[in-house]
């Protein structure tokens, strides 16, 4: 390919094209960016001197990555932690380079950097070829919707720009990206360190006829206009200033014109656009995708945040409607995801309570195959089904479009995953759909009725530590003060709700899961819940914590093992030591002490003092 770049047709004044640089750690992303900025003369005066100085201080030759790795930890450890953005100009066109970290542990930062890019440069070490993070990043490019990808075979000098070997790596990558349905725009053999095929054509690879990286960047087309699509505006907020009501939001696609008939959200109310309002701008009766505007409606309805405004009376232009949603998940929580977990699904400005109804398939990153699984591992990818209590309106996810960009947040408002909505999920043959419903009674109303807040105190400790005794005494003391308390005690629960369970690790985990759900229901009803359960494993307690959410308080009943053994109120230690009880915590199976409990209750002193310790913590939590 010998075409030259003609900037005039592609320059958009003042509009920047963000390009994300991704790839496996140490394949040379930061060096590439340093080289790009240097070759395009984009460094401010003095910056080069700083880099040379920072490098010299650490005994290094010029370290290009210091341009981007601005944090002290990044320079000291030679690793990019968080993404950064640097503007640069190419033939009068503005670009923003987004540097994304390659380490798996910083995946969330890679996504943060990459999500709004219009194109990606996937950097692959020509000698090493495709590695784990290459596959992971490629998968993410697909899921966040980037479909213009330039592959840079970096460090090609290390294999002497050998055509046969480079073609081999190119073949592997094309196959990988092809399976992910990603367009490969160019594959460029290069050396970022030496500048081969970055800004200038390399003489070391005379067999290569494609563009240099800079030429490839200038071929990126601006995103297509979204004006011609059916109108969508998710309501962001509703204001009233000086007697006028404004329905505020950003148009996601299409256009809106004064006089248009709109339908509001799922309830089907209709209104006419009386005015398209902007402040300190000449009046103009039309607005299009990307604009943040305010509408005056006639009649003067008050939509809710999250209601989708769509054209009225046009079936073909209507969004999809479903209560079971198929999504392609990228999972960002440090803990695995399991069926039955509940989240808030954020979709533009809307929020819905959703439950994971099914994990349909999990992606194996080694060969990108899909296979059934019970859980999605941390940083994993999966196809899952989400159940919502009622039908919601959405447009399916498509690369480069704002539609269907679902995000899952936990009870702490933390983002735990991206869930692009692919479409409605069919109900499996012969199964019941789960439709969880959310209570309309607010926490504040419940607290008002009870006169106190709610909380779950999860008391963990060795058998014989005194958990049940302390819990029961605390129950009495708190009840006398008029507080509403329930105790969930291990043995009591096992005599009924969990009488089908034994003491294997799996059964213990199931026991904890059930107790955690009961505690959650009681807390939702406004109760103070004291759970007395050995719950020996950190992993299982983390699961309980995830189920219970922000009301969770971990209490470690701290009693010396010898004392528990000598107390042995149920005669269990004796039996375990005789080998008559298998998998007995503290004897034949491990107890993991909590790392950072919210409360430590000493269990070896006087009971009244231990109880006071607990009741003080309860008062603090629910006052």
């Amino acid at each position: 390919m010998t075409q030259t770049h003609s900037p005039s047709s592609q320059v958009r004044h003042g509009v920047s094209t963000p390009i994300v640089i991704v790839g496996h750690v140490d394949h040379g992303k930061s060096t590439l960016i340093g080289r790009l900025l240097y070759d395009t003369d984009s460094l401010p005066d003095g910056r080069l001197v700083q880099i040379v100085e920072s490098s010299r201080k650490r005994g290094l030759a010029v370290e290009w990555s210091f341009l981007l790795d601005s944090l002290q930890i990044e320079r000291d450890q030679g690793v990019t932690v968080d993404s950064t953005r640097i503007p640069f100009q190419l033939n009068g066109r503005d670009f923003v380079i987004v540097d994304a970290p390659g380490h798996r542990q910083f995946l969330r930062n890679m996504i943060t950097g990459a999500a709004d890019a219009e194109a990606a440069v996937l950097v692959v070490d020509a000698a090493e070829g495709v590695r784990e993070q290459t596959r992971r990043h490629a998968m993410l490019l697909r899921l966040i919707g980037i479909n213009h990808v330039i592959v840079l075979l970096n460090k090609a000098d290390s294999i002497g720009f050998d055509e046969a070997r480079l073609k081999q790596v190119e073949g592997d990558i094309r196959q990988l990206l092809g399976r992910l349905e990603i367009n490969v725009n160019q594959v460029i053999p290069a050396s970022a360190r030496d500048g081969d095929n970055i800004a200038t054509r390399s003489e070391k690879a005379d067999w290569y006829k494609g563009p240099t990286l800079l030429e490839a960047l200038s071929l990126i087309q601006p995103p297509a206009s979204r004006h011609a699509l059916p109108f969508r505006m998710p309501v962001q907020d509703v204001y009233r200033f000086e007697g006028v009501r404004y329905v505020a939001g950003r148009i996601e696609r299409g256009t809106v014109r004064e006089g248009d008939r709109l339908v509001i959200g799922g309830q089907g109310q209709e209104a006419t656009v009386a005015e398209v309002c902007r402040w300190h701008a000449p009046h103009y009766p039309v607005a299009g995708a990307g604009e943040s505007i305010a509408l005056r409606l006639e009649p003067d309805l008050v939509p809710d945040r999250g209601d989708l405004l769509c054209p009225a009376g046009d079936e073909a232009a209507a969004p999809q409607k479903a209560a079971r949603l198929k999504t392609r998940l990228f999972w960002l929580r440090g803990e695995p995801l399991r069926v039955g977990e509940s989240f808030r699904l954020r979709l533009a400005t809307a929020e819905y309570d959703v439950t994971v109804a099914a994990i349909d398939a999990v992606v194996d990153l080694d060969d990108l195959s899909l296979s059934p699984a019970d859980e999605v591992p941390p940083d994993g990818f999966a196809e899952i089904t989400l159940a919502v209590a009622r039908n919601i309106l959405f447009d399916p996810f498509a690369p480069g479009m704002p539609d269907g960009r679902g995000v899952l947040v936990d009870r702490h408002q933390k983002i735990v995953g991206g869930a692009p909505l692919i479409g409605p999920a069919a109900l499996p043959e012969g199964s019941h759909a789960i439709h969880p419903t959310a209570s309309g009674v607010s926490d504040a109303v419940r607290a008002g009725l009870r006169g106190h807040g709610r909380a779950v105190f999860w008391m963990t400790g060795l058998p014989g530590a005194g958990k049940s005794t302390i819990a029961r005494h605390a129950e009495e003391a708190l009840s006398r003060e008029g507080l509403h308390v329930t105790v969930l005690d291990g043995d009591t629960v096992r005599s009924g709700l969990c009488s089908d369970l034994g003491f294997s690790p799996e059964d213990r985990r199931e026991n904890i899961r059930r107790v955690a759900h009961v505690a959650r229901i009681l807390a939702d009803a406004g109760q103070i819940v004291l759970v007395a359960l050995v719950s020996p494993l950190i992993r299982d307690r983390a699961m309980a914590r995830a189920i219970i959410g922000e009301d969770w308080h971990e209490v470690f009943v701290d009693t010396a093992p010898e004392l528990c053994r000598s107390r042995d109120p149920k005669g269990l230690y004796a039996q375990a030591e005789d080998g008559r009880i298998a998998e007995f915590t503290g004897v034949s199976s491990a107890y993991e002490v909590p790392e950072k409990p919210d409360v430590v209750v000493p269990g070896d002193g006087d009971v009244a003092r231990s109880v006071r310790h607990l009741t003080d913590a309860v008062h603090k939590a629910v006052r």
Partner: protein
Amino acid sequence: MALEDARTMDGLDQLEAQSIFILREAYRKLKPMALLWSLGKDSNVMVWLARKAFMGHVPFPVMHVDTGKKFPEMYDFRDEYTKKWNLDLVLGECPPVEEMDPSLPPAARSAARKTVGLANLIDKHKFRGVVAGIRRDEQATRAKERVFSPRGASHQWDVRNQPPEFWDQYATPYEDGMHVRVHPLLAWRELDIWRYIERENIPLVDLYFAKDGKRYRSLGDQDITSPIESNASTVAEVIAELETSRTSERAGRAMDHESEDAFERLRVAGYL
């Protein structure tokens, strides 16, 4: 008669629309919130964008954390536009420099006063959202920021563990005592700010324009900010100057250059 089409948005239109979106998200999700008005060009643009977002109103307080060492022109400007723009102004004081971390270099130590003044003000009013006008292109650690940047109860920036932020979904605080720094100008560059000032005709303090061959490119405290050589005496001339400039905007800010990590340390402690 043919109907008008929706307009094609240029770069400034896109930045403006995104900033309005961010301010509206913040106002909806973070109550009570306030906007930091340093009286400089960026924070004036931010007040202007708030008026765009809320139809001419600024429906939350604007805070000026006063070091007592600003230029007199800036105090005059503050008083004039508090009235003209109908702002709910909240003032905060800064403790004396002697109380600051003595291990910081001198100018950074002076700048740290503002961090403490700001922290006191946030605690006093229990603000959950604080809107600040920092930009990624100003300084390399700012380039790593989030649009919504959660701060712990001690106002620390946990730079190693920032939340994911994508598809316009932002982190909101989840524990008592936390607040969120909101950065609606993060994606703007210095030139964008000036072009927007020109387009919207946003008033500025005169110090930005050249007198006797010097002007201020960035405004901080009098004792740690120095002017640059320049003959640009109008907005248009400043834009023309910046289009060919090769030095960084904060070159005149002493605390940025004292040691390699001075600015990062300031920011981790809660500086802007």
